[in-house]
């Protein structure tokens, strides 16, 4: 989901969760009375000092920060812990991070109103909250020390986990005062530091290392798929070959004969095979004979959908954004240029396929998995098992990537997990595992999209711009629909297209929302995955047609977009831009995209290889407000670029009469190390509020590469993936 709609969605979600909104710093008594007391006690976890739901300090000086956002690579463990440690003046080497339990009262995303992660909001919505949590704890530790030493609190300084009183020469560590601090009153509004005295936020000397690198380098980090306990059954589910099909009948006799298979049950999503171990479950599933009722199934092929979408794009859709009179100006232009861009369905293919663990005794359920929308998943499990939410405990696990795949508005994984547990009955812990084939063929794709663009040129300038977008709605039928899909416009379909950073007098963006039986989902940077490409390729083409330089021409139209202009200038300087080339067979392409309130510009250097374009180097400038951890920001730009290059060059889930064609990494090609460009990142200095970096590195890279290809004389690629365009 996107930050520009968060205020709206928050209001809507709060309506649904009436009465659950409790202040962050509950006094002890209210804490005990609230329904959240259980979770809070869990969060406190026997620590000596747990001043709020986010911090525990033990007698051994360890500061544990409870992280309300799931960690699957974008760095919230490190980032949110940094915010706390900054205000607490903690010793970074004593700081640990772990996932907070599922509890909307304490751990909601302030941008959504529910507990969940997405839209690159983790740092943005936590910046003040986590700093305040740290400042509160610091004030209570100081008060405890002041009391014990008999000195005024204001004379006590704190540095790297040590409290000091210079006058008397006394000092003590956090751990020594943890217990006494817990008895201090909770200050209501502790002061926050001025950014000029930050010690940890923004530090870029390599001393604020990530908290999870060691466990992720030696195999000890625990993921959902690693769960095991006595009596646990591993479950795989046979899903239908076409979306919307249902089980008509099945014969499980051969499956049951596989050694290790314990049971076979029909569940709403297919047929579940329960086994002692993953291998027998997979083998058992291969032996199932299922006949599917495909009467309601989606049977169109990608090519057919593309033809239908292209036809739709020739008619005006619902207006998503407009100023001036684009249609009239187009008709009067000296020259018009038209381009169509076609985007395929894409799978997220996180490295760890979907999975979940659940234990249930009929009265209470305990689930553990990489939940990205805890509030919704928690409720889904309770609903399926006929339990009250307080009878369900949901623990968030580290997950092997998501890229949007685990943020399910429908909670389909949580529901399937609960259904397989329910079908086998209470008392049998289950671990549900999706294989890679389940993942690639399982839907919830980035939608297939067509953009039809028209540009009008006069006197060497772009005077009119229209963009007709055709896409399925990601939000349709979800709890977010009411607020983010107003007036028939799903904001996620047109974000980045309905407003562009360029001053063009006559502008129009409209949308056709289609109805296709393929489940779709947000995919790392959501609408910007295609709007960034369409807008940045088309503007580049228009600039070339008017004889303008890709950088200077963009800058000339960015009078009302200073931060976009800022990153574009920065990247041009970093790359020592002197035009697109080609020089010695290498051309350079530019793109700049604002997404999730962060601004990213990239320049890609590309040559024509034997089997498609070869991306040699990418320069990247990012403005994400105050940089909390510059190295994590660089890592997200590098990763976003690699993820985006792979998708732009190779990514496609084609449908053949409704059936997804690729099944695994042999047929769904992803980027490998020899295809990864060199990356140079500049993090632009800023004092604006921090914004996210998990997604914004992705959108510019596809168009930057395509724009370079155009300058190589390879044509302007209209249909993704790009290797198809060259072949």
């Amino acid at each position, binding site marked *: 989901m996107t930050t520009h709609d968060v205020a709206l969605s928050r209001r809507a979600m709060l309506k649904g969760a009436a009465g659950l909104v409790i202040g962050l710093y509950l006094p002890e008594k209210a804490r005990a009375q609230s329904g959240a007391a259980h979770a809070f006690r869990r969060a406190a976890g026997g620590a000596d000092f747990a001043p709020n739901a986010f911090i525990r300090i033990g007698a051994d000086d360890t500061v544990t920060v409870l992280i309300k956002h799931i960690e*699957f*690579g*974008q*760095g919230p463990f490190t980032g949110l812990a940094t915010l706390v440690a900054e205000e607490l003046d903690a010793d970074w080497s004593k700081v640990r991070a772990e996932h907070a339990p599922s509890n909307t009262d304490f751990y909601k995303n302030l941008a959504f109103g529910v507990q969940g992660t997405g839209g690159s909001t983790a740092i943005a919505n936590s910046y003040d909250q986590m700093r305040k949590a740290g400042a509160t704890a610091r004030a209570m530790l100081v008060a405890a020390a002041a009391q014990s030493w008999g000195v005024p609190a204001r004379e006590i300084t704190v540095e790297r986990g040590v409290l000091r009183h210079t006058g008397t020469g006394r000092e003590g560590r956090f751990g020594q005062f943890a217990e006494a601090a817990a008895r201090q009153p909770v200050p209501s509004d502790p002061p926050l530091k001025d950014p000029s005295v930050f010690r940890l936020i923004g530090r870029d000397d390599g001393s604020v*290392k*990530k908290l*999870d*690198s*060691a*466990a*992720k*380098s*030696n*195999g*000890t980090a*625990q*993921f959902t*798929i*690693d769960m*095991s306990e006595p009596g646990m059954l*591993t479950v795989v589910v046979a899903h239908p070959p076409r979306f919307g099909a249902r089980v008509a009948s099945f014969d499980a006799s051969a499956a049951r004969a596989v050694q*290790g298979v314990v049971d076979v049950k029909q569940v709403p999503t297919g047929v579940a095979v329960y086994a002692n*171990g*993953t*291998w027998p479950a*997979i*083998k058992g599933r291969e032996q199932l004979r299922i006949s599917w009722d495909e009467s309601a199934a989606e049977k169109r092929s990608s090519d057919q959908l593309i033809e239908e979408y292209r036809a739709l794009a020739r008619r005006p859709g619902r207006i998503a954004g407009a100023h001036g009179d684009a249609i009239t100006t187009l008709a009067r232009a000296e020259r018009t240029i038209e381009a169509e861009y076609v985007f395929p369905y894409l799978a997220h*293919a*996180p*490295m*760890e*396929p979907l999975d979940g663990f659940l234990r249930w005794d009929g009265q209470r359920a305990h689930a553990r998995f990489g939940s990205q929308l805890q509030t919704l998943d928690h409720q889904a499990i309770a609903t399926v098992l006929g339990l009250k939410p307080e009878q369900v405990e949901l623990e968030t696990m*580290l*997950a*092997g*990537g998501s*890229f949007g795949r685990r943020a399910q508005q429908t909670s389909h994984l949580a529901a399937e997990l609960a259904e397989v547990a329910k079908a086998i009955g209470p008392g049998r812990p289950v671990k549900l595992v999706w*294989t*890679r084939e389940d993942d690639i063929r399982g839907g919830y794709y980035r939608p297939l999209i067509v953009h039809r663009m028209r540009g009008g040129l006069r006197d060497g300038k772009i005077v009119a711009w229209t963009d007709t977008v055709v896409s399925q709605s990601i939000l349709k039928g979800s709890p977010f629909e009411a607020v983010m899909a107003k007036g028939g416009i799903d904001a996620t379909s047109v974000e980045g297209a309905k407003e562009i950073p360029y001053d063009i007098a006559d502008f129009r963006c409209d949308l056709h929302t289609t109805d296709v039986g393929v489940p779709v989902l947000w995919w790392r940077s959501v609408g910007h995955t295609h709007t960034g490409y369409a807008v940045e390729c088309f503007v580049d083409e228009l600039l070339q047609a008017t004889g303008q330089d890709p950088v200077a021409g963009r800058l000339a139209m960015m009078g009302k977009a200073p931060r976009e202009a800022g990153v574009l200038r920065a990247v041009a300087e970093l790359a020592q831009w002197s035009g697109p080339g080609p020089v010695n067979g290498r051309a350079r392409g530019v793109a700049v995209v604002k997404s999730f309130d962060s601004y990213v510009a990239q320049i890609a250097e590309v040559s024509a290889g034997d089997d498609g374009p070869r991306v040699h180097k990418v320069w990247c400038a990012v403005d994400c407000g105050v940089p909390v951890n510059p*190295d*994590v920001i660089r*890592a997200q730009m*590098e*990763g*976003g*670029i*690699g*993820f985006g*290059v*792979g998708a732009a060059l190779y990514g496609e889930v084609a449908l053949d009469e409704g059936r997804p064609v690729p099944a*695994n*990494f*042999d047929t769904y090609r*992803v*980027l*490998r*190390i*020899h295809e*990864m460009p*060199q990356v140079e990142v500049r993090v632009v200095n800023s004092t604006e509020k921090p914004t996210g970096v998990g997604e914004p590195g992705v959108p510019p890279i596809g168009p930057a590469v395509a724009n370079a290809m155009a300058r190589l004389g390879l044509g302007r690629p209209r249909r993704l993936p790009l290797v198809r365009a060259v072949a």
Partner: protein
Amino acid sequence: MALAIKVNGTIQSVDVDNDAPLLWVLRDALGLAGTKFGCGVAQCGACTVFVDGKPMRSCTLPISALGTREVTTIEGVSGREAEAVQQAWIARDVPQCGYCQSGQVMSAVALLKQVKKPSDRDIDLAMNGNVCRCATYVRIRAAIHDAARALEG
């Protein structure tokens, strides 16, 4: 079928099907969950282990084909190269989600055992069977060079 296999220096007896891939024997029967499942068809490298010191994809190696060969997993990998690689990984903060990294580390250790000072091309050849969906490739490459330098000095 009961089998005796040598993993990380210890002989273990397991009761599994002949055709069970080594990956699932390690993970489900022996509880060695550091070796990961990513594709099951030798396309991603998440399941990389050493078999008699050579990197192999455990997801497509049937346990019956292992014989007396010795298996080393991320839990048991040791020696100068392993230390250098893991230190370089931490120093560069290579992992993002971390899920592919057991396999990446195993492949990198195997490379450095073979080639003391790998070129970028050596790295491409040794590492291109290991997919990282977080695309930590820039840092993987840099960390391998760092580790090679550390082993020199």
